[in-house]
């Protein structure tokens, strides 16, 4: 018999669950966190870039002992066709600041560190245990969870679902719908080992400086998706991801896509001589604002990827996960102190608080983007990258043709590929979706 009762149970130990459990425990609540993996981070995949601000709001001194790889001093955005890339690079010494803004991390190590902090804060963390269902009372209020271990229901005032994008607990209990194939991306990623000196020489880095490359174009073979390459201390993370329904329609396998990306003439030399240490695949919720499910109910709250909190345009996810986890926990602490019950109505304070943060504001701003890119994927992930690359080449190649003719040629190539109206339409829609 388990007659003890917890103030809160957190399902999952990714960034959202750890943020929630840590916040609750430091405020003195009795917290149980349940994770199905062998340890926090063992099941998790990310690029991975850590945005300092979201973590700083939870653990201000995290830089003292968190396992961080490199701080990002240079951002490259590449538009790629089959043989070229057109790039925008931003590098600034301002990013070499006392408290850097973005870091590359390895999730397996980072999550483990975060989890150790959660335990230190006083939460009980059970790993290798999967939550199988939410237990409800006769009024439909969630009162606890059951796990894949034999034994009783574990009871709590509130259950925080931080179970990630494909969390089955919420689905099984009808709290949220199954993720639709067109609002979730499948990403594959590899870690390539290279000696520290090689990484630094290859990317012009000093000390712990780091470079990130985000890429799009024909590399996704007309599917809606992006690719990335991040520098770690002694390795490089490289990956690519596309919307699941596109993979289904195209019959292209994710690993074939990654192989092709790694062999692209712009990428290959960056990985030369490296040894692949790790291969991982994971889903990313990309449905944006419109895909956000109901977030609270009687006795439950959803945070992180489980709530579709990913800003696909800016490649932000873990920071939204941590912020939603923190705010959910703060709401629970607030109700707990007032001795107010964890009803749907009371918990909806979480949704209200969220709407005042960057999380909801950003997702709302980009609410039209997923549908726009998906509906015009042939143009955005095929035609335009090719045209831009051709235009660049025409412009830079010196071959005795005068510049006026070159300009005309570029203009003609765009006109013959797509009607002026179509192009203006796309631009207009993009601007509108962006605003």
């Amino acid at each position, binding site marked *: 018999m*388990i007659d003890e009762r917890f103030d809160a149970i957190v399902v999952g130990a990714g960034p959202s669950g750890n943020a929630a459990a840590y916040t609750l425990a430091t405020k003195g609540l009795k917290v149980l966190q349940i994770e199905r993996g062998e340890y926090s981070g063992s099941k998790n995949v990310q690029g991975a870039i850590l945005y300092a601000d979201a973590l700083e709001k939870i653990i201000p001194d995290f830089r003292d002992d968190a396992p961080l790889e490199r701080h990002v001093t240079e951002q490259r955005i590449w538009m790629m066709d089959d043989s070229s890339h057109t790039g925008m690079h931003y590098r600034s010494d301002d990013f070499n600041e006392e408290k850097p803004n973005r870091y590359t991390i390895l999730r397996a190590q980072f999550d483990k560190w975060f989890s150790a902090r959660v335990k230190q804060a006083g939460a009980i963390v059970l790993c290798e245990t999967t939550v199988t269902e939410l237990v409800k009372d006769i009024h439909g209020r969630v009162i606890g969870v059951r796990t894949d271990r034999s034994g009783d229901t574990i009871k709590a005032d509130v259950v925080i679902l931080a179970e990630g994008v494909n969390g089955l607990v919420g689905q099984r209990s009808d709290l949220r719908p199954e993720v639709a194939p067109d609002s979730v991306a499948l990403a594959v990623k590899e870690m390539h080992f290279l000696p520290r000196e090689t990484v630094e020489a290859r990317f012009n880095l000093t000390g712990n400086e780091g470079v990130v490359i985000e890429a799009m174009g024909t590399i996704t073979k007309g599917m809606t998706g992006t690719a990335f390459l991040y520098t770690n201390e002694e390795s490089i993370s490289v990956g690519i991801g596309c919307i699941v329904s596109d993979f289904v329609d195209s019959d292209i396998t994710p690993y074939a896509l990654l192989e092709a990306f790694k062999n692209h003439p712009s990428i290959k030399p960056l990985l030369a001589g490296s040894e692949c240490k790790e291969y991982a695949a994971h889903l990313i919720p990309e449905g944006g604002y419109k895909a956000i499910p109901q977030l609270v109910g009687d006795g439950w709250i959803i945070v992180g990827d489980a709530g579709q909190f990913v800003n696909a345009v800016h490649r932000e996810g873990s920071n939204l996960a941590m912020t939603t986890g923190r705010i959910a926990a703060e709401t629970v602490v607030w109700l707990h102190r007032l001795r107010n019950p964890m009803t749907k109505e009371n918990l909806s304070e979480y949704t209200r608080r969220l709407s005042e943060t960057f999380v909801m504001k950003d997702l709302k701003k980009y609410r039209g983007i997923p549908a726009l890119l998906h509906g015009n994927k042939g143009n955005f992930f095929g035609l335009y990258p090719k045209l831009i690359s051709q235009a660049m080449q025409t412009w830079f190649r010196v071959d005795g043709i005068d510049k006026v003719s070159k300009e005309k040629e570029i203009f003609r190539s765009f006109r013959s590929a797509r009607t002026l109206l179509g192009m203006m339409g796309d631009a207009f829609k993009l601007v509108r979706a962006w605003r």
Partner: protein
Amino acid sequence: MHIVVCIKQVPDSAQIRVHPVYNTIMRQGVPTIINPYDLFALEEALRLRDRLGGEVTVLTMGPPTAAESLRKTLTFGADRAVLLTDRYFAGSDTLATSFALASALGKIAADFGKPDIIFTGKQTIDGDTAQVGPGIAKRLAYNQLTYVSRIVETDLDAGEIIVERRAEGGIQLLKTKFPVLITMLEATNEMRRGSIENALLAARAEVVTWNATDIGIEDLTKCGLRGSPTIVKKVFAPTARSEKAQIIQAEGGPTGLAEALICEIFQRAPGVESDLYEFAASN
């Protein structure tokens, strides 16, 4: 009945990597696990306790991080965990290890009751010597039963135990008296999954932690590197296998893929196909 299980935390050998540049073993970041052979010993101990009553104490010598492995054994349902940790123990070979463990078992006997049975795994995956168990038995003057594949009978009143022991060329049926040290063979049982109550208890349990002084060791020259006559002369990496993973592709969905996969296996290992037919025919 008091049963003690000696376990070791070992690097997960499936995940050990050799530094591609310097050719040394990269220990850092390699996850640790409970020596897989020890789990069979632990499960057998738990079964005996469940049947006959009593307590299971788990003992390990290792770095402070070995407490995690001990905690895991509590999740499985062990009653108590003891960690023996001291920098004086660093670099112990099997002689020094069995000395330290036997000393700790002396204190366990004094504090928690004399063990009727001490279990160890058959051997460890990182040392492969199979010497520590017998070493402990010798030092404590326990009867020893090595390579046990099954516990046939335990008679508490008579103080007797009957086991099956796998030996070359057959199985021996052996009877002996308590107290006894048993080294358990692999694949003899299946580790249980602890209940949620066990898991909750384990998450909060205190691991009993002792150092060399706590267990009454006075002669430190018998410990660690100084007490170890074994010398590791050289560590080297075997050359990498040239065989590469192969990606199998096929039309026709899961069925097509399964067929392609099976064809590939049959082609490489022709014996498997005929074995399977024979198996199917005999069932």
